[in-house]
């Protein structure tokens, strides 16, 4: 009985990690409709920077902040210098961001080598927590709470604040938004920065969960894309639900059919998309 509780909660915890990674992508790709294949690279950037700073004695939370800010700044530079010129043309965006991903990945390989590293677990969250006979890692339990809280905050920001309204307006109809005085390029710049900043946050926390290597950026990006697409482009709640589902399917796939672990995940995603091509909460756009 307890084993099943462990499996289920761990599935949710892994889903939460996926949501942290996917949250930034939900904003940049799902909402802003900018394909960002460098998302995994910003994940690495944040994770490696935090790892570097903490091993050199910087306070954990300061290192986390530095990683997030660095990736946010980096993301904004990429957006301002290159990406904004490619608005609406996805294939050039794919090529460009893939290039950025390779550059960042190779810089990391050159500076830190190819051996895996891991940013530390956030202080106070190391080791397991014991409730009666049930043992579960504290860090993973907290991760679930953080994912739900993050989804609530980002969702509320977009839905209820004037800033959120501006963002939605800029995305839905750029020309009208400009006409009513919204500084669309600035909005996009900041939104993109938030997206890459979130990627870096996921890198610091996810890195503590799964460790980092120069090629883990792409592994992570693939899972994040799945979550965003299954959840429905642009839907924060959908992404959270999708992340939990993917986490649970992955977990039980590994428990019931360990030999088919990769197949169970991708096959169920393919099946779902065959039935609901727009994902769980993807809305139809009426023009």
């Amino acid at each position: 009985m307890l084993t099943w509780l462990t499996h289920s909660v761990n599935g949710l915890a892994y889903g939460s990690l996926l949501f942290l990674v996917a949250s930034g992508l939900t904003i940049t790709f799902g909402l802003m409709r900018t394909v960002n294949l460098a998302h995994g690279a910003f994940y690495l950037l944040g994770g490696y920077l935090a790892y570097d700073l903490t091993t050199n004695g910087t306070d954990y939370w300061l290192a986390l902040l530095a990683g997030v800010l660095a990736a946010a700044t980096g993301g904004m530079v990429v957006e301002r210098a290159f990406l904004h010129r490619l608005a609406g043309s996805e294939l050039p965006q794919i090529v460009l961001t893939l290039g950025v991903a390779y550059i960042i990945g190779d810089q990391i390989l050159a500076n830190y080598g190819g051996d895996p590293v891991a940013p530390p677990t956030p202080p106070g969250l190391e080791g397991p927590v014991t409730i009666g006979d049930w043992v579960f890692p504290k860090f993973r339990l907290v991760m679930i709470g953080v994912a739900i809280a993050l989804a609530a905050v980002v969702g509320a920001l977009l839905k209820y604040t004037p800033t959120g309204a501006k963002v939605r307006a800029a995305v839905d109809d750029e020309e009208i938004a400009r006409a009513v005085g919204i500084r669309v390029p600035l909005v996009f710049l900041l939104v993109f920065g938030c997206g890459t900043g979130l990627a870096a946050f996921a890198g610091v926390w996810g890195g503590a969960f799964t460790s980092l290597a120069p090629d883990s950026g792409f592994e992570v990006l693939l899972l994040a894309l799945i979550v965003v697409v299954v959840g429905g482009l642009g839907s924060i709640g959908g992404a959270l639900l999708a992340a939990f589902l993917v986490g649970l399917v992955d977990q039980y796939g590994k428990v019931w059919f360990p030999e088919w672990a990769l197949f169970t995940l991708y096959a169920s995603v393919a099946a779902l998309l065959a039935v609901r091509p727009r994902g769980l909460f993807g809305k139809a756009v009426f023009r």
Partner: protein
Amino acid sequence: MQCDMSKMRVAAVAASALLLLAACGGKDPSDKTGGPQDDGKAAGAKGTVTVGLLNPATGPFAALGTDVNAGFEAYLKSKGGVLSGYGVKVAKADEGTDAAQGTTKARQLVEQDKAQVVVGLVNSAIAYAVAPYLEQSNVPLLITVAGADGLTRKENGNTFRLSYTSSQDSMPAGPYTCKDLGHKKAAVLALDYSFGWEAAGGFARTYEAAGCTVVQEIYAPLGTQDWGPYVNQVKKDADVVYVVAPGQDGVRLLKAYRDFGLKLPIVAHGSTVDETILPTEGATAEGVVSSLHYTPQIDSPQNKALLDASDGKGNQYLEDGWAAGMTLEAALAQIDSDPTPEKIRAALAKVKIDAPRGPLSFDTYGQAVYPVYIRKVENKDGKRVNAIVTTVPGVGQFGPYDPATYLAFPGYEKLKGTWAK
């Protein structure tokens, strides 16, 4: 609506592009080390010999390839670029991430750079493609990492291997775990690919031969992000867990194992806790017992020379490269002039050296015979090290079995899943 669907299509294209990338292991087309490099300018009294170094500089195994190259070059440097009177010219190429590139580069080393011997190879799949080509062109191959058992199964061929076959280093762990540690029931937790099956199989075979029982086998895919689901399946009535998970998988496995507060002792294949990942594993590796043919803790002048030449940093890959240099030196010492590939092949078969790992020679199949160390991760001055517990001398690829008996066993890929009783 229309627009939305096209976005979905882009997402699909992006996702499939990524899947491809993941499959190729992030292949980087830039070839940083391609082409010959003349670092061996020193002229030897007896002439020169060209060595082709074929190790990955890109892809997931880049770090291992870099270490092997560094070990080989460090040894060469310590000898002033001259081995047994021959000036050594090194031609380096990137093994890459697929068999086609690996073979092309091997061809380039042999045909353009006129390499008389090729040293390297990390990826077994590439080694399986390169070895027949070199066999055919009569250029001896000295493998430094690639572990697939089948690479050294031909008697008097021209493939030699300094590193372990996947099952070689794990076989001594079986009787040690059963008899010395007294753990009677083992759960096996290994990666689901040939290395995992062979390494786990080597342990399971000798462990059961010693009179103990494997009670469970769990295999997880390479690159498993979350090991939680696997470590939680380990049977609670087992006495010990035998783990095969090199690289990043080892880091993740041990972290999940400790996070979930599991208490069973861990015995592992040495690559699960080798020095390339031990600093990252840190406290999670504490107490892990493992078997491998090398640890930087070996107290010998040969090992001290290696550690001094590499800033105190030692690991099995550096040692493989270093030992390749020593092996080549010992082979060239037997050749008076004109080191043709044929002469080098014949000389390699007779090599006996004292490597940093200990006494090393080749069996008739070209596989190295060497001591295997049972090690335990301990905290020494705030740093985790693989301290030597005991040494098993003269371990060959067939372990305690004679070649005929061993070669009659079915392959490990068929035995996978049948060890557990």
